[in-house]
């Protein structure tokens, strides 16, 4: 049936590519958009294009940003002796929401996964080491997820960074094994940052 309305079918197909959205939901959303005034549709299309055009990864910490370096990296009130390493931008946002951390960040964009063939060279590890070698950093707080992949990454980083004479710590209390930070509540993340322990 949809084939007879190609532009409608095309939108449904594009929407169905979103995470957690199947054909049924995509069709519902397409009908919703169909009934919107033209300005609304244009605003949505613009917003999507702007996101693509204006955002990039910060060349220092690899968080998503519109200005390079990002506002977190440029913030002089933040503690420069402390860097927190996370797997994904979502985890950085989770820690920011918890308001427990006042240092700088580094986003790896993934985690080591022997069974999926994801190695150190697939992550932003070399730029992290370069940052640390420039000096000034006293503590690296590893906030990778509490999964096998997150733990493997933490162990690997600790091995790499400890010889540089930098204290390496890991989030500790309250975060259940198997957890991804993105899905952990703020209070728990806060407690985990406060109670970080040495590796």
């Amino acid at each position, binding site marked *: 049936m949809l084939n007879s309305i190609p532009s409608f079918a095309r939108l449904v197909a594009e929407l169905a590519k979103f*995470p*957690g959205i199947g054909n049924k939901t995509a069709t519902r959303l397409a009908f919703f958009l169909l009934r919107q005034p033209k300005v609304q549709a244009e605003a949505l299309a613009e917003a999507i294009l702007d996101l693509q055009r204006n955002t990039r990864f910060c060349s220092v910490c690899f968080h998503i940003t519109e200005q390079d370096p990002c506002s977190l990296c440029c913030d002089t009130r933040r503690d420069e002796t402390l860097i927190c390493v996370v797997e994904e931008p979502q985890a950085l946002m989770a820690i920011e929401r918890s308001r427990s951390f006042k240092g700088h960040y580094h986003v790896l964009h993934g985690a080591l996964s*022997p069974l999926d063939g994801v190695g150190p060279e697939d992550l932003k590890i070399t730029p992290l080491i370069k940052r640390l070698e420039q000096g000034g950093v006293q503590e690296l707080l590893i906030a990778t997820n509490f999964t096998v992949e997150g*733990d*493997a990454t933490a162990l690997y980083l600790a091995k790499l960074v400890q010889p540089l004479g930098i204290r390496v710590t890991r989030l500790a209390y309250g975060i*259940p094994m*198997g957890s991804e930070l993105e899905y952990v509540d703020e209070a728990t993340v806060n407690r985990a940052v406060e109670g970080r322990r040495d590796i």
Partner: protein
Amino acid sequence: MNPNISPAIILHHTDYGEADRIVTFLTPEHGRLKGFARAARKSRKRFGASLEPCAEVQLHWTARGSGNLVSLRDAELVDLHSGLRRDLETLTLAGYGCELADVLFDESGVGVEVFHLLQAFLNHLDTQGYSVEARLLLEIRMLSVAGYLPHLQHCADCSGPLPKGAVSFSAALDGSLCPDCDAGRATLKIDRMTLGTFGKIMQTPLTSFADFKLSPLSRKEGQLLLSDALRCYLHRPLRSLEFLNRFSPDETS
């Protein structure tokens, strides 16, 4: 539909969409299966940490209408094996064990033996940590359970005795070869003592890992001969193997 309830070891998982997960697991009775775990990443109520690779669990699942993917309903954690996370070598070796079980076996037969072998291997690493011996014991027993054990202590061609000292070996030619049968075909030379050591290992129980100590020569040659045998029978290179060779403290060559 009545759910299947069975002990299982989680071998691997892949994220599916935003919150779901596809999990590969090993059971004693049904062999290696793949299951769909809805909302496993987001909601921790149902599965918690029980779908983490290397975890031993009590798994509940039902068959799905079509395809070979089952639906995971519930999982009770028996042992997360958190001791595996003590260092990178141990964790990588445990992952390698899981991948080996994943590629060597499927839904058919041999489930019980592989399950107990992998379970004992993970329990051992959990408490004792990495060792080359644990890796070699696992490899030779996995090959044996899969029916791929090469001939070690007699000639693979004529069943005759092997000479003292260096013996010709090629997994592609079924194992050790006497000088007459070899005729320059085999690529490896393995000391007869090493072959004897691994022959003896095959007489020990499948699940015993403690108190094995091999000589440096047996460790080195054991790795050569078992790598040759595994290369011969695996239909794809193991992703965890590159990691293992990179992060393990004891190098072969």
